[in-house]
């Protein structure tokens, strides 16, 4: 009996509810959330790095020495340091002697930098000191000229060495008509990057240019005076010399100056790695035919950005777009910034380094 009374009561309550809910429609505009999506994953990766405030890192950059090329690199490195808010310690060694570079590195270690990027004068000599720095928790990368792989995380290369080496011989061959004697002016016989290029220059000659003959490879120690002397010496020593190719930035201007002084324009061609500013005059006057290089500013910029990224735990990957640099290539532990640029009398004025 009581159960039935309850049932009745439920029935009335139900009826009342139905009536109430039927009347409940209408009223102010409001929203009822049905589903809330967790943070959309698109573009989250980039967002994380940008969102978390990066610590103010101190990055040490060590060039081979001070010259026009490395000064331009410093400009790029400084620009990057401003852009990404890190402290740049640009430590120039006293000379190309590896011992001086070791000094410079020790100096940076004392200043407790977070990362060191070095352009090595000698691939072996720097390994112990870089090992020490690594022990201190300093991240090591190399740029421009590499060390032994165990000493650093990765190597920021400007161009693919094979491409560059073969291209340099191509520009020379085009200038001298694919035959005749030529000499190579290199920075130091121990610098790893230059030796690598020379290897590919020889290979290219072997492959395509049987009528060209390499007569000598002379070091310049990246010093303009020494390079100038060496160029004059070459002209004197090899009367049949048709071309000089320089694979370090002081080489081609020195050779062009020697050619100018010997009044050998047209007889002897000068090509090689150098900056537009150093070569502009010689190119316009016809003492040099082609200068080849990359943007040293871009190299400095990229080096600092990649060092900072490494400190944030981001290792570079192939085809990675780097802001204000472009897409980079990664080949093992070597990063390649891009393709080489050729400067001739037609376009050298477009460049300001």
């Amino acid at each position, binding site marked *: 009996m009581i159960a039935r009374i309850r049932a009745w009561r439920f029935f009335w309550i139900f009826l009342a509810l139905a009536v109430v809910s039927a009347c409940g429609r209408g009223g102010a505009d409001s*929203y009822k959330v*049905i*589903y809330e999506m967790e943070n959309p994953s698109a*573009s989250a990766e980039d*967002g994380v790095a940008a969102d978390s405030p990066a610590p103010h890192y101190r990055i040490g950059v060590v060039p081979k020495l001070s010259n026009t090329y490395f000064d331009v690199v410093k400009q790029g490195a400084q620009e990057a340091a401003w852009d990404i808010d890190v402290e740049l310690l640009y430590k120039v060694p006293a000379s190309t002697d590896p011992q001086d570079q070791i000094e410079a590195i020790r100096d940076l270690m004392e200043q407790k930098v977070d990362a060191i990027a070095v352009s090595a004068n000698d691939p072996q000599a720097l390994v112990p000191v870089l090992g020490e720095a690594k022990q201190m928790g300093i991240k090591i990368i190399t740029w421009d000229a590499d060390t032994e792989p165990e000493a650093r995380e990765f190597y920021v290369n400007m161009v693919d060495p094979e491409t560059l080496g073969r291209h340099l011989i191509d520009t020379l061959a085009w200038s001298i008509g694919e035959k005749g004697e030529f000499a190579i002016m290199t920075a130091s016989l121990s610098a790893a990057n230059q030796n690598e290029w020379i290897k590919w220059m020889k290979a290219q000659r072997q492959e395509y240019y049987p009528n060209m003959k390499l007569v000598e490879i002379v070091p310049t120690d990246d010093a303009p005076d020494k390079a100038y002397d060496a160029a004059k010496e070459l002209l004197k020593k090899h009367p049949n010399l048709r071309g000089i190719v320089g694979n370090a930035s002081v080489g081609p201007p020195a050779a062009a100056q020697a050619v100018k002084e010997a009044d050998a324009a047209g007889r002897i061609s000068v090509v090689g790695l150098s900056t537009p500013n150093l070569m502009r005059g010689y190119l316009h006057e016809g003492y040099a035919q082609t200068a080849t290089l990359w943007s040293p500013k871009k190299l400095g910029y990229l080096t600092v950005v990649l060092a900072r990224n490494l400190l944030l735990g981001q290792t570079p990957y192939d085809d990675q777009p780097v802001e204000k640099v472009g897409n980079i290539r990664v080949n093992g532990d070597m990063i390649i910034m891009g393709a080489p640029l050729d400067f001739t009398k037609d*376009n050298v004025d477009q460049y300001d380094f």
Partner: protein
Amino acid sequence: MISRLRERLKLRNTRLSSKLIMTYLLLTVIPMSLLGYVTYTQFTRSIEEQIGEYMPRFLNQANSNIEQRLMELASLPDLLFNSDDMIAILRRDEEQSVSDRNKDLFSLNSYMSRTYLGGSNPDVLAVFLLSKNRFFQSSKVAYTGFDRDQAIAPYRYELSNLVEKPKIILPSETGLRFQNDVPYILIMKQIADTDNRRILGTMFIAVQLTFIDRILHDFEKNDKADLWVMNGKGERLYHTDPEMIGTFDAEIDRYPIRNGSFRTTGAGPQRLVSVTESAELGWVFVHSIPLKYLTEKTDLVRNVTVFAFIGVVLVTAILAVVLSLNITRPLKKLSRLMKNAEMGHFQVDHSLQSRDEVGSLARSFNSMITTTRELIQTNYRIEIRQKEAELYALQSQINPHFIYNTLETIGMAVEERETETVVDMVTLLGRMLRFSVGNKAKSVPLTDEVQHIRDYLTIQKYRFEDRLTFDIQLGTDIERENLYSPKFILQPIVENAIKHGLETRKVLDIQIGIGKEMSFRSGKQDVVYRIRDNGPGIPAERMAELEEALRSDTHIDKDSGFGLSNVNARIVLMHGPEYGIQLHSIYGKGTEVIVRIPALNGMEGLAESEGMDKSRGEEE
């Protein structure tokens, strides 16, 4: 408490059929409607949730497709680097001759026209390039309101710094208008000379919104749905309805979430709104569809269900009503019958012939009524018969003829001075009168009954003298026992014998024998009266009539048979059918009447007759 009690009483007093119908409603209609309601709401909710979960994902997908497409468009400026000549033009300083400058303008404009407005980018409407105070442009459609000074002015300050990321400019932020008001967005991207670490210029790419259309159209083909893209301020830069492009969504700040789905629950049709916000662009993608289109099919199912439900409810309700009436109608009829019986109308109703419990109840009741009625009728008959018998006996006792004849005989005896005879007759008459008047009991001692008939016959003997002879033989065993007999059972028989006998015979002889005999009907020793006369006898057909009259209880016959059948009926009523009167007669020779009664001694007989008296008194 009181109200609950009242409710309870009310419920108890509700009619059974109402209770049955209510119970049916409780057990079927309410659970069914509840079930239907819950199922429907759950189903629509799950549809809502499914769409609500799926739409933001799809929007997110569309969003990333659009972002990707925008990034592709934003990378178009890099194509300039494919041409050294074009880069050379851009790198060139301002100080040139007018002709050189116009030559550069021409080559770069035509290069952009070839590169950007060609086949692979059908969405690009126009490309503008601002570089070192030079304004390059290339357009598919005629436009107004965009040149070096007026259009770019608001962004000039941004041009000094190298900004890698593209910026989207909406039509509301610039004066640029294309012919026919083609909807567009402007992608602003700086061109960086990474080698020289300089900004070469800024490119503006006007893109038709058809690419958004294409991407979104792949996702949503339902034209009932609205899809739009707006910026963080609510400006709709794209809408499936082209009229709406450029308008503002005032509600944007009231949206409860920017990534997910919600339902509008205001006036007007409810809508399911899904939104996602693009992290990259800051755009909000909105998909809005009226709920009723989502639940269209469900609503159809619901309507069908509701109709089917109502139909079923109606049918079952009718069944329930019929069924409960089927149960209660016989009960009602039965109760009416009972009420009638209470009022004294013992009718039998055979319309309740169902074989269920109510039917068997009705049958039992009917048989009870029948039995009751029979009992009543039996009692009634007995009563009437008894009364009639008594009346008759009374009438016989004070038969005026008898008294008149007797008094006449006495008178003659007085004239003849036969004093003794007179005294005898008056004494006899007086005793007879006392016997008939004095004792009201139905049963009297057997000896009194015999004495009474002897008195009667003696008086008749005085009257008819030699014409009548009689003899009464009383068994000695009967005299000893104190036996009882119904009153006035012999006189009607003897009167009958005298009446018929004296009509035809000169001398009538009546023999009366009283004795005990073993009866095979009752299986006991019964008292038997034998009244034998030598009267005319009874003809065979008359005999049959009489026997018929004795057997059938009718007492309508008031003539000669009346006395006999009355006596017989009284005995049968009092003692059962195994007792009563038997007739034997030979026509012309005489008749013998045998009266058989049970042998009851004094107390038994009294008790029996009194008990019957008593019970009869109560009934009356």
